[in-house]
Structures are given as C-alpha cells and as structure tokens.
C-alpha cells in the first residue's frame, strides 16, 4: 500500500499534462474549450471537415481507416502550436482503446469472400495509427498500443511514468483512440511532459 502511494506521488512528480484534446460526436475540444464542431457527427464526413479545418495537405490521410484518421487528426490538434520538433526520439506515443481495429476488421472480414484487400488488411492492427502519426511527424521514439476494457487514464499515465523513469524522452502523446464496430468514435489525447 505504501509502495503504491509512493508510486502515485512519484507519478505526479514525473509527468505533467500540458494539453488535452477530445473528439467525440462531431465535436473537438482543446483543454475543455470548443475548438471545432462539424456539421455532421458521421465519422467519415466529420473527420474530413476537421481535416479541412486544419488545412492539411497530406495525401496519405485519404488512405487511412477511421481509427487512423481519428488518431492522426487528434494528434495534429494536440501538437498544433506546441513547437515540438520533428525527426526525433524525444516524443513517445502511448495509445489505447477497447475496440482494437475491429471497425476495420469487420470490413476486412466481409471482403474475404470476394477479393481480400491488402490495403484494408494492413489497417487490421490498432498500432497502425501510431505508425501514421510517427510517419507524419518523423517520430522515431517509444510507442505502444494497449487495449483496455474502457478508458483507464490512470493506467496509461502509470505506464507513462514507468517510461519516463527509464527512457530519456521529453514528451509523450498519451490517451484513447477508439472506433467501435458500430462506427462510434472517441479520442482523448494528452500531451505529457517529462519533468524528470
């Protein structure tokens, strides 16, 4: 118990949340304040309107599945105006969700009977979204994709602390990126700074 308490205290020392972004039901909040509200909350059109709002010119975006688009755009909003440099090992990415890649898994499963598509199959892994964020920003650092029963912020921050404890990275993008089999989506990302 004492050890656990000490651990929690240590977590608070080590990592500091400097920004939060959430995306849900057609709405984007930054530090709890409205950043963008789409005209529709349908995942495809809503994410496209957010992409336009961010004025991105990134062709790879259009190949991504919903999970990757959601995580990619949430990370873009999180990193906006933060001045974090690219080409670095210094930014870790620690993401989690409940649905893994099931939204795309179901689409791939349905395609097997006809012609299985490699461009769909590659998105049947939840960590691909981490790859997409890494490619865009040239982040070579630590990363991991966890699957949880539901969003467990404490467990993710615990792991962030463990990582900051052993690895010299300056920032971590930490949080939740989920698209379920019914198309419900939810992203909650934090930018954490290593104070060690």
């Amino acid at each position, binding site marked *: 118990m004492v*050890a*656990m308490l*000490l*651990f929690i205290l*240590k977590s608070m020392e080590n990592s500091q949340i400097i920004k939060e972004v959430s995306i849900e039901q057609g709405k984007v909040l930054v530090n709890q304040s409205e950043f963008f509200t789409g005209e529709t909350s349908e995942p495809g059109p809503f994410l496209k309107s957010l992409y336009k709002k961010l004025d991105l010119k990134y062709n790879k975006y259009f190949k991504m599945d919903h999970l990757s688009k959601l995580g990619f755009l949430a990370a873009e909003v999180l990193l906006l105006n933060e001045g974090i440099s690219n080409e670095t*090992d210094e930014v870790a*990415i620690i993401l989690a969700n*409940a*649905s*893994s890649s*099931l939204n795309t*898994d*179901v689409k*791939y*499963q349905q395609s*097997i009977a006809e*012609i*299985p*598509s*490699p461009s769909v*199959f*590659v998105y*049947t*892994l*939840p*960590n*691909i979204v*981490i*790859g*997409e964020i*890494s*490619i865009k*920003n*040239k*982040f*070579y*650092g*630590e*990363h*991991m*994709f*966890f*699957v*949880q*029963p539901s969003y*467990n912020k404490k*467990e993710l921050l*615990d*792991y962030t*602390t*463990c*990582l900051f*404890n*052993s*690895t010299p990275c300056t920032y971590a993008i930490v949080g939740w990126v989920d698209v379920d*089999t*019914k198309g419900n989506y939810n992203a909650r990302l934090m930018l954490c700074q290593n104070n060690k």
Partner: protein
Amino acid sequence: MACKMVRVTAHNIISPLGYTSQENFDKVVVGQSGIALQNKGELSETDFQAALLNMEVLNDKITAIENADAYTKLEQLCILSLQQVLENVDIKSSRTGFIFSTTKGNITEVAKDSHSEDALLANTANKIAAYFGLQSQAQVISNACISGLAAFVIGRRYIDAGLFDDVVILGADVLSKFIVSGFQSFQSLSPEPCKPFDANRDGLTLGEGVASVVLSKADTIGSEGVEVVSGAISNDANHISGPSRTGEGLYRAITRTVKIEDAVDCICAHGTATPYNDDMESHAISRAGFEDVPVSGLKGYFGHTLGAAGVIESIISIMAMQRNIVIGTKGTVQQGVAAPVNVTKENIQKPVSGLLKLMSGFGGCNAAVYFKKHGE
C-alpha cells in the same frame, strides 16, 4: 534512477513442436521444424505452408480445463500455457501484473457476429485472468509482431518503476482465414518453408503458438538465472506496411538497448524471410556495429507466430544461452542480405553470456531486448 534487477523465473511454450519449453527446445536443437504443407480448407482456399497446432493431441489437456467449453481455442491454449508457469506466483497479489500480447485474439468470432463481445481483446484477457484468479487488471498489448517482445520491455519497466514485483507475460495467436488470407493478399507467404536471410528467400511462413514467461524483481540473479537487462521500442516513421530500407527504427531500438561494449554474444533476429525484412535487419545490425555477432532466426522452426513470436523466440534463445549454444537458422542455405551480418546456419557451441533479441512489425514498429546470463 531506480535500477532493479529483473529476472526470468518461469517459462512455457506450446507449439506444434511441444507442450513445454524443454520439449520445444529439444526439437529445435536437433533441427526439427513444426512447419508442414497444409491442405486447403477452413484456413485457406489453396494449400499452404504453416506450423499448425494439432488440437487433437492436446485434447486430454483441454478437457481437463474446468468448464472447457466456455473458452475459445485461443483461450484454452492460453490457460494450458499459463498453468505451467504460475506455480510460484502470488496470483492474488496486486503486486503481480499480467500482460497479454496478441495481434488478433479471437478474431474468428467476427466471422460469426460482427459485434461479438468475445472479439474484444480485453474480454479475452480478463476471461483468462479470471480462470486463475489473477487480481490485477490485465494489460493487453496489441502492437503487431513486436507485441510479445514488447511485453518484456514493458514488464521490465513496470518492475523497475516499482509498480509490480512480478509480471506474468502471455503471448498468443492462432491462425484463422482472416490472418492467412491477409498475408496471402500481400503475397508474402512462401511456397516452401521460410528461408530466413537466405539469398533465395521468398516470403514468410505462418505459425501458431502460445507462450508464457514470469518476470520477477530480484536482488540477485543467481548463477542459473537470466536477467532482462534493458529494452527499447522505436518506430521507423517511414511506412505502415514496409520496413525502413535503412533499418532506421531497429537501429535506434538496438542502440538504445545495448552499447557496443556490452557483451552481445548472439542476436536472435526477427528473420521473417521476406526480402525486405531481412535486408532491413541486416542494415540495422550492421550499422549498430554487430556485423560479426552470430545471428539466429527461429522462424524456420515455429513459423511466424505473430503476437506469440517474441515470447517463444526469447525463451528458446534464453535456453540456448544457458547451454552456450547459438541455434542454427533453419532454412538458410546461402546467406544473401543487403548488409554484412553473420547468420548461423548450424548450431554453434560457444560461450554466450549476453543475447540481443529483435522484432519488427507493421506500423513501422521495432523492439529490442538485452538478456544476460549471470554466474559466469
């Protein structure tokens, strides 16, 4: 900085080669492979090479599982593997962590019901944990083919930071039409058993397996013990389905895990036997300065067992290290990769005190772990 020692205290492998780590090791060391030509059927519309588990052989053990019918094939295998390593683990303690590594879990359930609760990976992990009464919340890692090795990196960090005293690692994947057709659509399956690092390699061979490891905090490692010294995960930041041509991510993972002056006496590579992967690894190993170190690839024995691969291959490499053996790379006849590396074709008997294990996967992910033997 906290710097606790982390020791490997128990392990198990269930694969087509055997039901215990020892059975598997004994087969590997004499060059036996679990890969065989599989007839077309449930998993594939054409014949294909794979290392498949024979569930009939395991039938007696499966029926001994309490309420066995309530579990899927994958879950039954996980139970059979875990029950062989938990004897000395305090499963009721909140100081015991549980990491479950898998890529596709119960993906077969999606074919029956798109919204199946059994396909949720956390449900699978919780079901397995509940069977044994493991108290702490299961941590599921689904990070493509590095998942199993990443569990060592993360488990070590949990213990190092004081979150847990023991961490139980379980890596598991079974084959399904979903997985086989996906790799076939990429045209990445080899027509013959895979040939890692060979000049004529032409693709990977899939396999099934389940493996478990217990990592424990230790004051001393002991003369027979193996320490998980360090580990790192990195990204290529290059392509989601193809490895970096220069091995950038893996190179960074290696150099963040070991220094050139560390005792690295052998490297157990990922060695999938796809043209790009093995070239990429040769670049990373060579750039890191380990071009003369004997390199083993174990996919010729087990196939590529996806989320279990990092666990299975680490256990076999650790057992080989304890016996001062570097395992020969089954399938390699004529080394033929882009950069200079020293791939072993036959078993080598030589002093091995430190071992570097590597894995890479889709999404540009790479992992490296450094294991060290004590008492010499």
